[in-house]
């Protein structure tokens, strides 16, 4: 059974529900681990097959969302060794393991250059970013997402659409044209903000932040590393749906993402 690690600490705040989501999806071996436990050498990334970077406000988003976490991964050394956090993350990735970044965790993956990694080199070069919403404010609202059927993403296998909440102030996906072309050519965009007819849109509030090409989530070319702004762990029971008192909700959309990951690892 796959071992799953949910990272926490320094302002991450969705770790509990990410663990619940994994457990509901069938994970038997999942745990929340504080970054300091890895830095202390108490826990090692290499013992796991699936890492979740949950949402939150890492270091208060003070230098821009997730920037200080990238700084920490790049420069902080793991106790009693020369290895830095980023080195242990690299060997984790190179083993073919899975990573899922949600909201602040997505911002981290993007700014650390873990995804989209269009050059397939794992050089941790930042190619894209997530910046302030066009509206200029933080917003909590549910959005319709269209899944790109041609993307290599293993997390969205067999899923056409998702309905999930976004809760962010810095969620506007942005990159230069060259990078965007590569993302499109390789189908690395996984999710797009859509209207109710499931057409990708730039129209507010369906596209809540003004993301380029309505992109809400991207992956790397292997499809094993995936990040998204909306919160799948916020819709793991039918009763999370904002209209459960008036509509019949069969299955919680967010749970499907976690199920796919575990299925892949099984």
């Amino acid at each position: 059974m796959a071992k799953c690690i949910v990272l926490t600490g320094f302002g991450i705040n969705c770790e509990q529900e990410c663990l619940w989501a994994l457990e509901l999806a069938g994970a038997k071996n999942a745990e929340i681990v504080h970054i300091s436990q890895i830095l202390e050498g108490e826990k090692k990334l290499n013992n796991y097959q699936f890492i979740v970077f949950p949402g939150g406000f890492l270091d208060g988003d003070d230098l821009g969302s997730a920037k200080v976490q990238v700084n920490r991964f790049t420069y902080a050394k793991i106790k009693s060794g020369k290895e830095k956090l980023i080195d242990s993350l690299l060997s984790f990735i190179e083993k073919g393991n899975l990573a899922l970044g949600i909201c602040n965790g997505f911002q981290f993956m993007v700014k650390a250059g873990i995804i989209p990694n269009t050059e397939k080199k794992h050089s941790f070069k930042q190619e894209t970013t997530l910046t302030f919403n066009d509206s200029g404010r933080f917003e909590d609202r549910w959005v319709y997402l269209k899944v790109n059927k041609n993307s290599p993403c293993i997390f969205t296998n067999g899923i056409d659409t998702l309905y999930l909440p976004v809760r962010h102030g810095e969620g506007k996906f942005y990159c230069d044209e060259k990078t965007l072309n590569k993302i499109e050519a390789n189908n690395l965009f996984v999710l797009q903000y859509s209207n109710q007819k499931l057409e990708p849109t730039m129209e507010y509030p369906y596209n809540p932040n003004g993301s380029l090409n309505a992109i809400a989530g991207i992956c790397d070319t292997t499809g094993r590393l995936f990040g998204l702004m909306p919160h799948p762990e916020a819709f793991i029971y039918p009763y999370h749906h904002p209209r459960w008192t008036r509509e019949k909700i069969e299955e919680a959309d967010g749970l499907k993402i976690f199920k796919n990951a575990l299925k892949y690892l099984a």
Partner: protein
Amino acid sequence: MGTIRIEVGLKKNLTDPRGKNLQKKAKQFMNIQIDEVRTSDIYTIDANLTIDQISEFINKTLCDPVINYVKINPEFDSTYDFFCEIGFLPGVTDNVGKTAKSALETFLGYQLQEGENIYTSTLYAFKGNINERDIEYIASELLYNPLIQQHRIYKKSDKPIIYIPKVIIKQKIKVETFDLKKYSDEELMKLSRERLLALNLEEMKTIRDFFENKDFLREREKYGLKEITDVELESLAQTWSEHCKHKIFNATIEYDDGEGNIENIKSLFKTYIKSSTELINKERKDNFLVSVFVDNAGVITFNDKYNVVFKVETHNSPSALDPYGGALTGIVGVNRDVLGTGLGAKLIFNTDIFCFADPFYSEPLPPKILHPRRIYDGVITGVEHGGNKSGIPTINGSIVFDNRYLGKPLVYCGTGGIMPKEINGKPSHEKEVKDGYLIVMSGGRIGKDGIHGATFSSEELHEGSPATAVQIGDPITQKKMADFLYIARDRGLYTSITDNGAGGLSSSVGEMAQLSGGCEIELEKAPLKYQGLQPWEILLSESQERMTLAVPPENIEEFLRLSKQYDVESTVIGKFTSTGYLHVKYAGKTVAFMPLDFLHNGLPEMKLKAKFNPYIEKKINISHEAPNELLKNLLGSLNICSKETVVRKYDHEVQAMTIIKPFVGLYNDGPSDGAIIKPLPDSYEGLVITHGICPKYSDFDTYHMAACALDEAIRNAVCCGGNIDKMACLDNFCWCDPIKSEKNPDGEHKLAQLVRANKALYDYTTSYGVPCISGKDSMKNDYIMGNIKISIPPTLLFSLIGVIEDVRKTVTMDFKNSGDIIFITGITKDELAGSELLRLLNLKGGFVPKVDAKTNKKIYKALYNAIQNGYINSAHDCSDGGFAVAVAEMAFSGGLGCEIDLERLPSEGNLSTIELLFSESAGRIIFTAKEKHLKDIEKIFNGLPFAKIGHVTDGQLLKISYKNQVIIQENIFTLKECWQKTLRDL
């Protein structure tokens, strides 16, 4: 030491939302047309470092290479006409600067030297046909607050000036003493005033007399003390303050009801609040109430394994001075109350209720008052950052508008928590402190923040003077501390915990020391933000994000190790004793030595007079004949309109517990009556959270104001599916000064209003069986400047928490299916006094809504019964705006029309259609159900005021008829637009 100035901005081809927003506001509110505003972040690094050493840090960590440019030691960009730079004053919390410093240390692999630092500021570049005066005006109205920030305006030809807001304190450390026996009464009061002790003559004399006690003086001599020290005097003043001791609520009051009846009341708190809870508890015979009125928050039973904790605080004065910092510290402060209840509860929700003046206020403002729109903006952003960054969902709240909140906005912040009933085999709600346990301070460091400002008057203001009156919270430091404390709690590393709020260490250690019977503090060990604090300042400082704990000596090593691992600073600052004394030392020398008993129980009781000046109720006739227009205008009025733009700024579903969200219905935009959360992953048990607040009735009779507020809170919870037998509430009183003085001639009436509100609290909590479990009061919400005085209307907030057996059986307020029958329960009466209708029409008079608790309780139980049986599709309470507003909200939220026969409304007296539509009688609920449940519902409501009044329709029309005449007919989307547009763009 060198300084490096770094400018980080968005690349020129990208739009700058912050700049656009400022451009829009300057046009909207000040009619200044600016062609372009660009903003950038300035980091000033004041450390012994070269650019080469840190250029990778600057280019990778301070800057996002995809969207940012970065300039090192730049000139101004000459394509802009003016620049304005906003930075902090010395000593004001600079969260971004602090984070940048810590990130730089990670990069360098070592700590910066003491005094080396990073400071942040914001640079605004302006382009357009504008002058320096315009920029000054924009800066003062929109960009900075002189209490915490400084600003500098530059022309394009100027060079940037490096600004380093380093705290420099020139005063030497000293302990002052006062030979009080030589002080005359006048001199005592002068001392009280000059040091801002806020102690009255009787209290000063009590202190003077106590310090003449021979036995006590002999004890003091052993530690080299004679006269009272500033440390002792300040501790006493703080402990005896209104804020800490609730002197008015504990006073003996001679109350005259205005009709010749005189009554002596010994403590409002004991007579009404505490005794009502005791009475209810005696009758219940269950263990619902776990810990009430003794700890930082109230504790009730959730289920066999868990308790829940709830507390609401106010942060009014700080929010008037700096709305952002005031509200932010309000929310993170109440978080610590719950974190410091028992052994500490996990924080699971926040609530926020604000009282503001009209944000569109256009009259000239009295001096030193911020525009209500700025208060609105700042407070909301403060609560947004406080809640969101802490990962706590903000699930319930409201905003009440009345222009008497111009001088003092009210900011109520609430927090709920959950904790296992037992931790390591011991009850989690109990604290234990034994002789020899160590006093540990965890979290932030101590600065001059929040010290009562005495330093302001005693020390001349200079460039390096720290700003003390206002503080800014740091949610991330607190989040890290909370993460650590939950682990330390579960490992049993400490036995008691409380927060450092008002009064700082003096309060937190002083209170905890009562459990062991004494303490010995070594002040010099407390970590400081900067050097130069006087011993009394260290003891009294209200610097944020700190908890005080009692740690048994055998656990200290593990506690400190864990603390360090989680990047939380913890320091042993003394030990608990059983000597009976508060003993404070600084660098080995005793600076305070007082019996704890005197500190906590030496305060003389206040004696006050109250005399009620009753309002005589008189019928008011409304001749307005266009109910359609009235309804549309009411929906758009400030107290009724949608607050969606505000509410969506709060994360209301982090932690994945929120089952009924603030907005419900077909388009997720209907106003929910309350929130439902499900705190445990493996159980459908839940909590309902609501509130009631009705200051609009205070001008008539605070007795009915209080009754209506409690009824509203309960009714809201019942509408969501709440069970009245499993509810508890919190009382938060915000009053205008109720003590008569020259400046306050009607003080006796205001105190009588307070007495009456308390009488209602007793009468109605006991009738409903819904006990108060915690509360707070804030008694001096007046603004006095020269001869302008603005007093808030007496305001009482009831916040309610109820236990839900099964969240799957809860209900929302939106119409669900066409064909459903619409019912109303409760009686509509001619009760328009204080109503939104009269406010709209600018009329005063009428009868105040009176609450019939006996009938209502039966109604609430009946509805609960019907909901549990699955008969009810939607339920919504009638409150602001009356029946018509409630039914319109249900219709547009469900995207369905309805047909209503107004004549069927159960009513009392011969009411006009206007009264039927807009009267605000309490205890009324509209609900819908499928036709097939009609018989069952009729059976449940048998004998209660209740009627079938219409049905839900497929169309988009809201149609209300009376005696076969259509009196309101309107498209529901038109109504919704009226309701949504008022605050949409603010």
